[in-house]
Structures are given as C-alpha cells and as structure tokens.
C-alpha cells in the first residue's frame, strides 16, 4: 500500500474550490473557483476568432472562420458531418493549434497547444461522452480529478461532506434537484448527466463552455432539458459555444449563429439578422437542394413522387 502514496501530489487546484464554493450560484459566478480570470459583464467578447484556419500538411480542414463568444450569450456552431465543426472545437479547446488567422481571448492573441492552457483561461469543453464514470456516485464524479482533501500528508483524505454538499448545491443552481448524490451517475438520464458535466465545468471556473453536440444522442424531451441548462449557464453570465447540426435546437437558445460547410464559414449572424426558416434552409444548403431537385426530376421524371416532394421542399422550406 505504501507505493500509492507517491502519486498523491498533483492538481494544485484541488483544495482551492473549497473556499467560496458552497455559497451558491451568485457567488460562484462572481468568483471563479479555480483561479481563472473573472467573468466580464454580459455582452463583452471573451473569445474572438478572425479568419482562423487549420491545415494538416496540405489538407485544409478549416479556413476563414470569424466569430465571437460573448459573456452571457450563446454562439451556435452549425454544420453537417465533416463540415469542420470538430476541428473548430479542437482549436477553441486547445487540443489543436490554429495555423492561420487570429485567436483572441480577452482581447489578447493566443496560441494554445494544450487543453490545460485553455482551461487556465476559463475555456472548458464538455465532450459528447461527458467524461463521467457510470458506476461511480454523482458526487465522486463531480470532483473526479480535482478532489478537495483535508488532513496532512499520508492522512490527507477526501472532504466528503463538502463534496456532497457542493455537488447538491451546484446541481440545484443549474436547476436539477437530485434526491441522492450517492446514486451512481449511470442511473441519471442523458440530460441530467449532461447537466452534471456542465455544472462541473462551471464550478471549476469555466467562463466559456464548449458543448460538443450535447443533444445529438438524446430524445426530444431530454434535448429540451439540455437546452434549458444551456440557457441557465448563459443566464449565469457564461459564454456558451453550442455545437450542433440541428437548427431547431440552436435557434431557441442561440444569440449568434456560425455556419460551417466543407471547412469554410458561411457567415456569422446575430439572431436579429436571421429567422429560423432561413437558418434551416441555409443548413440544408438551399442552392444545392435545388440542384438535387432538378437532377431527381430529370432521372425519375417530373411526375415521380420523390421529385415532387423534393421540389415542394425547395420552394417552401
């Protein structure tokens, strides 16, 4: 057993969240737990990207993307499979460095090469698999990797009452009231698990939350639950980057929409400049759809049911 003591020294942030954390939502929002920069007033850009791009050798995965993430606003990144969404997130999350353009955090140009560097600036990513361990209790999952401890040296132990209490308060602040934080996280619904992951990122000092297709694997009702949590995070003053391929999920919560196709940006629109119908038709690729309709009517004949349906779709999206 003596061998295990050796790797106890890590995670300098471990005991930091213990301080002002239990006080509830307002306190946490004003005083990020892990020492990352404080949240600016709503509407202030936290991240700005200008003509950003990424090439892997001769392959250009992403080019000319311009958008911003503001405190208290939701920036939706929309695109089909292979449009460059994941490359874009990886740049924001610090997993890949960009090769072109400018990436500004709080107005300062940055080149981030590790997720840890992004985290230090308050940019947290919630991946699709949520990084939770299904068989472990909710409170253990909440603090996994950054456990608060009390006691000294070999006697340092988990501060279990604090961990349980904080988990309960933080989840409540996100609008989820768990009966029992001791239940394995695998017993929660998909939406609730997403919420735990979001609450965890917020608690550990996130100013910008990157959500990678949080609604992709969920049913209609659960997706609604997640959208509500996104709104809640926004109301707490965080900047949210919501990646999705579903314009119906993006439109209700989004303040700004950035569309990607084939590694290029199709534009960055504030909500005021775009209706849901426009968004849907842009997503579906308006002109391409028209061309497909022509081709179908040529190969199947004007009167075929499929071609008619398609034509109707193009003219009345």
């Amino acid at each position: 057993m003596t061998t295990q003591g050796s790797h106890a020294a890590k995670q300098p942030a471990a005991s930091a969240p213990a301080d002002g954390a239990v006080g509830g939502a307002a306190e946490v929002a004003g005083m990020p737990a892990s020492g990352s920069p404080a949240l600016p007033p709503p509407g202030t850009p936290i991240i700005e990207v200008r003509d950003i791009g990424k090439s892997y050798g001769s392959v250009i995965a992403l080019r000319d993307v311009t958008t911003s993430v503001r405190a208290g606003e939701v920036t939706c990144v929309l695109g089909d499979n292979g449009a460059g969404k994941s490359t874009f997130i990886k740049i924001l999350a610090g997993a890949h460095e960009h090769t072109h353009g400018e990436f500004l955090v709080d107005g300062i140009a940055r080149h981030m090469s590790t997720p840890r560097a992004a985290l230090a600036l308050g940019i947290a990513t919630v991946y699709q698999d949520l990084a939770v361990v299904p068989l472990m209790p909710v409170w253990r999952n909440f603090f996994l990797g950054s456990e608060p401890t009390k006691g000294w040296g070999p006697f340092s132990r988990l501060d279990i009452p604090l961990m349980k209490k904080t988990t309960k308060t933080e989840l409540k602040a996100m609008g989820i009231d768990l009966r029992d934080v001791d239940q394995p996280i695998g017993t929660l619904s998909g939406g609730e698990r997403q919420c735990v992951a979001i609450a965890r990122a917020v608690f550990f000092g996130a100013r910008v939350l990157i959500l990678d297709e949080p609604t992709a694997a969920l049913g209609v009702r659960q997706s609604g639950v997640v959208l509500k949590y996104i709104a809640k995070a926004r109301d707490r003053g965080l900047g949210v980057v919501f990646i999705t391929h579903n314009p119906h999920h993006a439109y209700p919560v989004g303040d700004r929409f950035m569309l990607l196709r084939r590694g290029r940006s199709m534009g960055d629109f504030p909500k005021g400049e775009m209706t849901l119908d426009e968004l849907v038709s842009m997503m579906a690729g308006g002109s391409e759809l028209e061309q497909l309709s022509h081709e179908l009517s040529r190969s199947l004949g004007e009167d075929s049911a499929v071609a008619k349906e398609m034509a109707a779709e193009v003219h009345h999206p």
Partner: protein
Amino acid sequence: MSVAEAPPEQAQEQPDERLAGSHRTARILRRPEVGAAAGAIAVFAFFALTTDSFVKASGASTWILTSSTFGIMAVAVALLMIGGEFDLSAGAMWGTTGLMTGILMTQWNVNVWLAILASLVLALGIGALNGILVVRTGLPSFIVTLGTFFVLQGVNLAVTKLIINQVSVTGLNNVDGYTAGQQLFGSFVQIDIGTTLTLYAATFWWIAVTAIATWVLLRTKVGNWIFAVGGALTSARQVGVPVVATKVGLFMTTAFAGWLVGMLSLFKTTTVQSTTGVGQEFIFIICAVVGGCLLTGGYGSAIGAALGALIYGMVSQGIVYEGWDSNWTYAFLGVMLLGAVLVNNWVKNRAEAVR
C-alpha cells in the same frame, strides 16, 4: 428563468417519504461485500455444525492462517481488479521473493534486513514493469502478466537449481538474523481458550492490509482514481486523473503483497519451494470476485475480497476436517465463482439501470 426555480418535471420525482426507510436498507444490501459476508456466515455455520474440530481454537488456528495468507493477496488483487486489470504473476511473486531472501541468507549470509529489502525492491520493480508494459502497449494485462508469470515460474526453478543445486531453500532457522525477521513475519500469539488458539503475524498483517486498502479506496483521492481508471479509462484521463501512475501503482501494490506473503511464509516455515505460489493466482482472483469485484473493473471492495479469502480458508480446511477428499475444494471454488459472477452482474445491471 430564475436560478432558484425548480423545473416542473423534477417535482414528480420527489421521493415518497415512506420509501426512505427501505431505501437505506436497499443501499446496505447493494454494498459489494454483502454477498461475501452472507456466504462466509453460511460456510462457517455449515462446518461448525457438521464437524467437531472446526470451531475448536486449535482447529480454527489453521483456517485463520490460510485465510490470512490468501487474504493479503486477495485484497491487493481486488484493488487491481477495481482498477480494471489482472495480475497472474502475483502467485509466482510469492515464490520469487521468498526464494531470493532465502537464498541470499542461507547461501551468502547476507544481512536479514538487506535480504528482505532486496526482494522487496525486486518485487516492486517487476510490478512496475508489469504496469508500464500494460499501460504503454495497451495490451490486455491478462496476457502481459501471463508472460511475467511464466518467466517467474521458470526463473524460480532454474535459478534456484543453478545456485543451490536443489529445488527448495531449507535451514533458514540456522542462519544469523533469522530471529529478527521471524519477529516481524513469523511470530505468533497463543490464546488459551479450552484449546490453544494460535494467531500468526500473517493475521495481523491481513487485518492491517484490509483496513488500509479500504481506507485508501473509500476515503482518499487515490481511491477515487482507482475506481475511475477501472470504470471509464477515457473519462478518467479527460478530467485529469493520473492514469499511468494509478495503474502502475496498483501493479506495484500486488507485487508488494506478493512480497509480503513471501516473507510471511518464509519466516514462518523456514523453508520455501521453487513452486511456491504457482497456481494460486486464480484463487486470489476468485476471492476478489466472490468479494464483489467486477471482472470488468470499476466496482468492488477490499473488505469483500478479505471475506472471499476467509471463505476460501474455511472451505479448504473444513473439507479436511470433514474427512472428504481435499480436491473437492476446487470444485467448490468453481461453483462459488460462477455464483458470485452471476450475482455481481445482476448488481451491476441494477446499479446502472435508471431508477
């Protein structure tokens, strides 16, 4: 949307007050070691009622010693299994460390503490090697440690024969310094209750190892990491758990337990065979599984594994007291393993089901 507002769909899920009591009972019943505890009580009752010598102090001394030796290994193996790995070389390590210390002392008159320390360093080194091989190559630990197991088994025999021209180390009690080592690993206390109850050092080590392992598992960061690396490796890595250190540390822990058991049996019996420990590796795993460990990792308990070893100790001696063929022990172990796996699987599925 105000922060304090509770979402309407949560309201219906509020627990019924009347459910609170049964919820608590259900939680205790869901503990991983419950099955092993029930099994241990049943096995004890059976042999206590059907044989005379089983509950007598002198008879109990034997099965307590067996349980202690296997218990130390089972607890370490359980930690490793919770961390999602196996160690098939754990049994052979028992022989390797015993042989090394024994040969150093009898053949070259090396100081007892130096000889003990040397085999500890060797054990930890092999444990670290196992761990690093598994983590760096991504190969299943079953295969990696199967390799280590065969290497150790071969080396134990060949090197011993090469150095002392026989397959067992004997005469340790004639060497200077033996008594010092014997104090720590081979001593015993005797309590007279009708007949004499003999408790060897191994039993106290077993209790200490189980207590420390339980504390580490449930009350420390490292315990949290062990559950995490066994339950969902990628997730653990994403949230910053030191995955490599945790796994390597676990392999070193089983190697440490192998060394401890090697020393305990060497200084108790003053002799060690080249084949010591070989074939026991699966028994450790069975004890851990009976104690509630999932073969897939991420779930289990140290106390459960200790209870699993207690069951093994009681059965292997109880069968002798019954006057049955001792080979029935293996058949019994097989049945117990299958039963335990089925129960664990059921528990796991219940734990993961949406309540």
